[in-house]
């Protein structure tokens, strides 16, 4: 249905994934698969999840993101959630959702800055 709406782009050693506005459960699961696939095939040290058009962030989405962040971390990468909407941030907080160890940034630009500024994993950082 909306699988084509997820865009996964590799920019050097970083992945940029753009999430559609109201993804169904299957789209979210496919997103996770494609991220892990891309991480495995290429040497990526970071994932930027662009959620600036996402209108609803429920527990399934949050769980999948938290899992993805953990898997990416195990594969040597970091994840940044970029561009969360104010209404979504408020709702997610009140619902009690956490996104695991994901970093957050106001937009994709800052997300890339964040990943650029961080030293690659494995050198004792964190």
């Amino acid at each position: 249905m909306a699988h084509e709406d997820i865009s996964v782009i590799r920019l050097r050693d970083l992945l940029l994934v753009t999430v559609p506005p109201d993804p169904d459960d299957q789209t979210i699961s496919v997103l996770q698969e494609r991220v892990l696939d891309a991480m495995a095939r290429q040497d990526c040290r970071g994932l930027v999840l662009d959620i600036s058009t996402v209108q609803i962030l429920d527990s399934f989405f949050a769980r999948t993101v938290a899992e993805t962040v953990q898997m990416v971390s195990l594969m040597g990468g970091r994840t940044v959630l970029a561009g969360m909407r104010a209404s979504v941030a408020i709702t997610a907080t009140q619902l009690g959702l956490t996104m695991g160890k994901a970093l957050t940034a106001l937009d994709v630009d800052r997300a890339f800055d964040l990943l650029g500024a961080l030293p690659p994993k494995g050198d004792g950082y964190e």
Partner: protein
Amino acid sequence: MPEQPNSPSNKLLGTSDSFRLLVETVKDYAIVMLDPDGYVASWNVGAERIKGYRQDEIVGKHFSCFYPLDAIERGVPQEELEAAAREGRFEDEGWRVRKDGKQFWASVVITALREKDGTLRGFGKVTRDLTERKRTEERLQQQSREIMELSTPVMQVWRGVVVAPLIGSLDSQRTQQFMERLLNRIVETNSPMALVDIMGVPTIDTQTAQHLVETISAVRLLGAQVVLTGVQPAIAQTLVHLGIDLSDITTRSSLAAGLLVALDMLNLQVVAKDLRS
């Protein structure tokens, strides 16, 4: 209204003619007698006017029908009768339902009526329709909220830094509105640093403290940070007592100190001009 001498209404009101006349003709108050189990025993003109039922259709019915469904589900009518029986009197303001289903805001006093030997004879219930007063109160509250909003703006003071000085008492609704305004402003101005100054807030309750903590968490989800400044000792005490972990919240005693922290986090610093050359 022809009645048997021993009718419930007679037993509760007594047979003093002038008193009965007073009760029966008062229009602005619903004066209702209930039997010890809460069934309507007598009705007056005011009750018909306020609640909409005629005497012949309501006497003998249980008084819980005047309450909204939610209240009935929670057992509120029974609780109020029990409170009146215990304390002698129960007073409350709340929503009640008319015959046509419309709700009105009521001021209610339920009094337990007892025989000389203490046995419960029934209850007297006086109800006043306060909808109009509540309307006015609401309007005033809304106006004062609007004034509060004007006096607590979220201002961008530098590229990447917004400041929100909170002044006055914070209630749950005001804090939620603030949360929305702050987050929207952060997104609009693309500011990773938000200074929230609560020097002008004397006390906060549990709900508000929770909302404040929620605000800080929500700001983090956006990708920004909050520096909390001006935390008064009383507030610090409340937060600690509520078990709120302040260790991962950046705090400073003054807004000025907070600003320096914010600039520092943005890798900026304030340098004095060299006026010598």
